[in-house]
């Protein structure tokens, strides 16, 4: 034997073994500390790689920014889930610092109780959270500052917002690099902003907007949009003259952002008309020429009705009684109607629109059309005349015929838009003044970079009553939001005011991947059975009502039912049982296909391959025995 086992040999082996373990620990501790960015991202959407948008924003930062991360160790220790989150946030911030060419510096602090760091954290506006009753206050927030004493703060990192982490951080850095308050030019044909005579209050949505941007009125007949306007908000445009249309066209083409609200029927305008005894026609708005050139299809002659999103209303019916019905023109939209991947809509819960139109991409237009808000599948186009004057919700519901596809109510449009004025600036009417006119030489035939617009086909969503409810709170009028209309507008404006890189930043993280096949099965089953279900539910309701009436007629204790009444009651009870039975069957049928699929999949995944393996095993054992028997026969 070559190898002689000796005491020395064994000792050497032990030492070698121990050293190997130490080496293992050292390698890993080292790699954990230093190798931060070497990774292979196998996800489809590259969820773990910083997006190009962030890299662009970081590359463009030209003055130093300091990021101060305050993360209490006790938080990481006390709540392990947060510990992981803190690690991820820290790594992300480190990546930002690494990619910024030294412009972004990261400092990490552990603000212990009563320490200087804690005071600093509080001074920056970070939110402290008590771990538990009487426990210490922990912090997990970020304070970012630039050279000119602007600061942006994330008071406490919310795990619910993790998928927007990259967006929030990039946004923060962008704002610090461009600290000037943005200017929104408001061109409105409805009285939504402050009236110079202070006759009416501005709409609440404008007040909210003014909290983070400067809102400046833009006249309806300007010939040039001022250069310091960062975003143009146009509300309910109608009767715009050519020179102003041209101004808007050129503004968008030279890179100005725009948020445009059009509407086939503005109920606010209709009310004003009624109040001033004007004819009810002409409540629509359009940017016809511009939309056509830019590739957007929209008709001010039709509104959109959605049966499932319809609002329950009470209208005077025949015979003086009021009728409760669903008004398909007043639609309350929920999560399923919003684009879950766009940062302007993904966090919204509810939006309320009335008499909204629909927009779509023109066939063959070379633009990127991203629907932000859509109706449900059971929607249809309705002629606007049906809602303009004394609409009949009951009739509209009766006449409802689903188009079986959703309509887009709001969309983001991007791309290189073409001018609506290929011949150049329009001639002045009446040889008017040309003071504000842009010289012909500056005419743009196509947008300079990527144009960015958001178009919404409803103006009533901006009205206070669409999303606010005024309640009396101890003598004060308090406005309580009932929908996220204003939040959507603010998100949209905020988003459009960012750079292109920022706008293109998709909210990443948990992208939803449902079981499409099962959803299809559910939908098909619903289509098949929902009508039956509705009828049965209706029958149930009626029967219950009738029974209720009979019971009421019984009166107080002593009344005796007549035979016929008792018979009727018994029949009703029998009916109830029968209807309930049928309903159960229907609901069972709805799930039958899905449950069958579930069972099949379980069988296949749990038993199929094992069964095959068993068969193979048996087959092999059998052939081996045969071979063995044959061999023993031979041998």
């Amino acid at each position: 034997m070559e190898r002689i086992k000796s005491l020395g040999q064994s000792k050497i082996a032990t030492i070698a073994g121990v050293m190997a373990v130490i080496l293992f620990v050292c390698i890993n501790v080292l790699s954990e500390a230093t190798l931060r960015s070497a990774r292979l991202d196998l996800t489809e959407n590259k969820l773990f790689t910083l997006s190009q948008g962030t890299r662009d924003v970081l590359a463009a930062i030209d003055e130093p920014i300091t990021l101060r991360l305050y993360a209490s160790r006790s938080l990481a220790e006390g709540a392990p889930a947060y510990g992981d989150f803190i690690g991820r946030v820290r790594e992300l911030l480190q990546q930002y610092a690494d990619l910024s060419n030294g412009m972004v510096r990261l400092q990490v602090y552990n603000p212990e109780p009563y320490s200087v760091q804690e005071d600093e954290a509080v001074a920056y506006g970070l939110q402290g959270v008590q771990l538990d009753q009487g426990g210490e206050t922990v912090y997990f927030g970020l304070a970012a500052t630039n050279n000119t004493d602007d600061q942006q703060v994330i008071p406490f990192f919310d795990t619910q917002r993790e998928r927007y982490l990259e967006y929030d951080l990039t946004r923060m850095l962008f704002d610090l690099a461009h600290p000037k308050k943005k200017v929104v030019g408001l061109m409105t044909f409805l009285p939504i902003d402050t009236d110079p005579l202070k006759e009416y209050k501005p709409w609440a949505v404008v007040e909210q907007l003014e909290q983070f941007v400067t809102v400046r009125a833009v006249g309806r007949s300007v010939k040039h949009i001022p250069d310091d306007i960062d975003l143009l908000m146009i509300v309910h445009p109608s009767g715009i003259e050519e020179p102003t249309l041209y101004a808007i066209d050129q503004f968008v083409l030279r890179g100005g952002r725009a948020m445009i609200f059009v509407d086939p029927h503005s109920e606010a305008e209709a009310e004003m008309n009624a109040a001033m005894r004007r004819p009810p026609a002409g409540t629509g708005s359009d940017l016809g020429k511009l939309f056509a050139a830019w590739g957007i299809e929209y008709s001010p002659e039709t509104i959109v009705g959605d049966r499932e999103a319809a609002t329950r209303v009470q209208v005077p019916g025949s015979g003086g009684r009021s009728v409760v019905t669903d008004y398909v023109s007043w639609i309350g939209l929920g999560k399923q109607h919003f684009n879950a991947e766009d940062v302007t809509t993904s966090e919204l819960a509810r939006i309320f629109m009335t008499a909204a139109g629909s927009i779509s991409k023109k066939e063959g237009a070379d633009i990127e059309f991203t629907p932000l808000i859509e109706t449900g599948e059971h929607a249809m186009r309705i002629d606007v005349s049906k809602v303009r004057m004394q609409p009949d919700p009951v009739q509209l519901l009766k006449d409802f015929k689903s188009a079986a596809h959703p309509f887009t109510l709001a969309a983001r449009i991007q791309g290189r838009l073409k001018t609506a004025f290929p011949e150049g600036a329009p001639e002045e009417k009446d040889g008017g003044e040309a003071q504000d006119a842009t010289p012909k030489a500056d005419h743009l035939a196509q947008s300079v970079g990527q144009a960015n617009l958001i178009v919404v086909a409803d103006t009533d969503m901006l009205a206070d009553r669409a999303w606010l409810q005024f309640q009396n709170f101890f003598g004060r009028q308090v406005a309580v939001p009932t929908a996220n209309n204003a939040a959507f507008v603010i998100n949209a404006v905020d988003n459009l005011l960012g750079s292109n890189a920022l706008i293109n930043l998709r909210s990443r993280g948990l992208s939803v991947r449902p079981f499409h096949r099962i959803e299809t099965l559910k939908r098909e089953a619903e289509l098949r059975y929902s009508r039956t279900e509705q009828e049965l539910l209706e029958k149930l309701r009626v029967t219950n009502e009738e029974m209720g009436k009979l019971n009421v007629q019984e009166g107080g204790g002593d009344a005796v039912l007549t035979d016929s009444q008792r018979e009727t009651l018994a029949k009703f009870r029998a009916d109830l049982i029968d209807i309930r039975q049928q309903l159960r069957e229907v609901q069972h049928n709805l799930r039958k296909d899905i449950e069958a699929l579930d069972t099949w999949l379980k069988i296949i995944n749990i038993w199929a391959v094992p069964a095959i393996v068993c068969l193979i095993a048996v087959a092999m054992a059998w052939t081996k025995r045969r071979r063995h028997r044959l061999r023993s026969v031979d041998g």
Partner: protein
Amino acid sequence: MSNVLTIFRREFDAYFSTPLAYVFIVIFLALSGAFTFYMGYFFERGQADLQAFFAFHPWLYLIFVPAVSMRLWAEERKGGTIELLMTLPVSTPQAVIGKFLAAWAFVGIALALTFPIWITVNYLGDPDNGVVVAGYLASLVMAGSFLAIGACVSAVTKNQVIAFILAALIGFLFLTSGLEIVIAFFRGWAPEVVVDAVSGMSFLTHFTSITAGVIDLRDVIFFGSLMAVCLFINVLLVDTRKGA
């Protein structure tokens, strides 16, 4: 190299010549499927991903891999065939690696036979297949790590049961080292560096991070270095213990 292949083939064929291997595979597949559907609520979740499937692998391997590794060296030592092995013109490292690879391949086959779930999830929806690939890689590598530990332990004792229990115990420690209960134990008396080091040794942490869809170099280094160190110690153990 060809020596390694010889050992590999010998061991690998040996697996399939006994009914034990088939029993192992059947039970592993049935359990992983059952866990996925009944404990992971795969169907009810409605998510087209295999998180409910991969989540149970660490715990399945904890029991099954020691069962595979326990016989790697303990059997040879008990049966005295280890001397026979050493008379072959094969060096110890080659033998160790050959056996390890054979065992790893065996577990790999068991893992590969779970393919129906991959087909199922693609049939039901549109999963991120890159993430699924990452999950399978993570699972395979983690199995390899459990195996390396188990093979090492199996070379320490002649008794297969002890080898199983010890391997499962060490595996359990590695698995749970990132969990709060273990960290809390260390935090009381150990310095910061040690606590961090211990929590960084967790199989679960590294496994979870790969199954999210990202193969971080640190995770590769962790599993790779673990397997390398265990195999190295395995060689040392076989060298010093044979002939006893």
